[in-house]
């Protein structure tokens, strides 16, 4: 008699894992995850959730301008959940579209920083010598400057190099470049440290004996073994990148007003601080705060969950 045990499904195996158990035991992680999920999904499918496309002038009615949240407009009688701005745009819809820009820039910048940082870290740790010295010197120098300042400088320089007529269109990409280049150092340092350890392990020596080249060894063999700290840094970097993007846009050196992010919306809303239209400023700020805080908390939790040594 043999009992046939049914192989567990992928999901069940994941559900039983330490990682998922940890997640189920942590209310902070679950709440943050829920908030992040809601915000990401609602901004990804912004056209479905939004009441209007706020950047299509055909949808706007100037009579709707400055409608307070929840109360009907004096002229048109329309109601808006979070009120409207000076041009009659629904603030709720602009937030969804704005968050889209914020999240896109944040994700793309972290991706860029991660690719550069991981590659540099692998090369630096594996080859050592002069390559290592140069890469790490550059990293040290960059680390002495606050990353927001580095991002601002890169943005300024890149803006100078782009032709005037494309500046608004390219602003988003310049922003990604600036934030991405300003945070590769964290990735490079951690990956370099991990690579130094992995480099001397037997599986790497075996691969070398088999005659594999340096780059296949780096990316096929070593990379998968140094990835877990990278994931943690990426999550924390995401929160920082979102705040950095918002800060740059708030300062007027980020997303243009034709394609506003949450930071741009806060910048616009600040103009109405004294005239009483608080909702134009309040709702984007709260959204930014919720987004940054929950991503940050998720990152903290992930760090503890993936690194049992710290517990």
């Amino acid at each position: 008699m043999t009992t046939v045990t049914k192989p567990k499904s992928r999901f069940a195996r994941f559900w039983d894992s330490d990682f998922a158990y940890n997640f189920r035991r942590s209310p902070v992680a679950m709440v943050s995850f829920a908030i992040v999920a809601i915000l990401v999904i609602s901004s990804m499918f912004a056209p479905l959730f939004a009441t209007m496309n706020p950047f299509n002038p055909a949808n706007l009615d100037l009579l709707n301008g400055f409608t307070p949240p929840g109360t009907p407009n004096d002229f048109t009688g329309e109601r808006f959940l979070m009120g409207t701005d000076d041009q009659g745009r629904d603030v709720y819809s602009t937030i969804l579209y704005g968050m889209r820009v914020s999240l896109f820039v944040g994700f793309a910048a972290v991706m860029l920083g991660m690719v550069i940082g991981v590659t540099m870290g692998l090369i630096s740790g594996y080859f050592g010598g002069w390559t290592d010295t140069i890469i790490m010197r550059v990293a040290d120098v960059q680390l002495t400057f606050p990353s927001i300042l580095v991002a601002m400088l890169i943005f300024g320089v890149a803006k100078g190099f782009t032709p005037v007529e494309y500046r608004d269109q390219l602003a988003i990409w310049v922003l990604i470049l600036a934030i991405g280049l300003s945070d590769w150092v964290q990735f490079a340092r951690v990956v370099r440290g991990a690579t130094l350890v992995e480099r001397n392990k037997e599986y790497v020596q075996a691969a070398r004996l088999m005659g594999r080249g340096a780059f296949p060894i780096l990316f096929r063999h070593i990379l998968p073994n140094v990835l877990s700290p990278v994931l943690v840094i990426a999550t924390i970097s995401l929160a920082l990148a979102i705040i950095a993007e918002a800060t740059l846009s708030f300062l007027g050196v980020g997303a243009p007003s034709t394609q506003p992010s949450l930071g741009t919306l806060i910048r616009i809303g600040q103009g109405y601080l004294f005239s009483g239209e608080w909702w134009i400023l309040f709702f984007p700020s709260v959204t930014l705060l919720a987004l940054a805080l929950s991503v940050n908390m998720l990152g903290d939790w992930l760090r503890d969950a993936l690194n049992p040594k710290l517990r």
Partner: protein
Amino acid sequence: MLSYIIRRVFQSVLVLLIVGLVAFAMFTFIGDPIDNMLGQERTQEDVERLRERLGLDQPFVVQYVKFIISAAQGNFGVSYEQGRPVADILAERAPATLELAAVSGLFALSLGIVLGVFTAIRRNGFAANLIMGTSLIGVSLPTFLIGILLIYVFSVELDWLPSFGRGETVQIGGWTTGFLTGSGLRALILPAITLGLYQMTLIMRLVRSEMLEVLRQDYVRFARARGLSERAVTFRHALKNTMVPVITVTGLQLGSIIAFAIITETVFQWPGVGLLFINAVQFVDIPVMAAYLMLISLMFVAINLAVDLLYVAIDPRLRT
């Protein structure tokens, strides 16, 4: 020891030269200065003559060396936007930023130490926990939101403090100060708190953890056994030994206060160097951007070098 110092100084100079190269590349590759200086009615000869007079026909390296030399003499060219020498504009704006940075640094240091000591000696008290909890939120708030929040509470709702500018200033030589007038002092409060809040929480947490460490040590217990008052134990014996790391961190944070002043100055329309820089980025005013870039890197490199050398002076283990 000597070779370490020489190596560090050499590295610092190298960094400054590279930053200078970036700044110089901005000048060389963004736009043609000849276009900016000559009008529509120009002949090819005018262009050639001006090119020769400005030294633009010389090799890249020669131009770069000249650029570095004139920058070292404080000559950063003329602002595209304002048409005045950049050095003059910077000298005019610097007092505002330096006063703001000094006041917020002082705020961060004094309140940070006081709250740090308080939360350490009442570690389980309600007030201490409240302060620690609030500080966590304070750290995750972006600087500009803190500024807006303060403006909303103290300028819009309560109408106690001004929300922008420096108030009345007094001119003393080449220095404009807001310290001597009532409105100048009132205008300083909100920006200084906004700028110093992050550093304050940082110092508070540092002092707290250092104090908790020190209070466990034997000499503190002996001081108590000798019958010294709690106040004397805390401030005379324990606090003194927490100061070394606090001083280093404060030193390193000095640079970021100046850097983050960009954000605070924009929120409060504070007429300092940071606001100047942001406007320069918006208008692509290359000479101002380049000058700011070089000045701020000089400052950061100098601070880092000083801290490194101080370490060597303080810690004998590094002198090998």
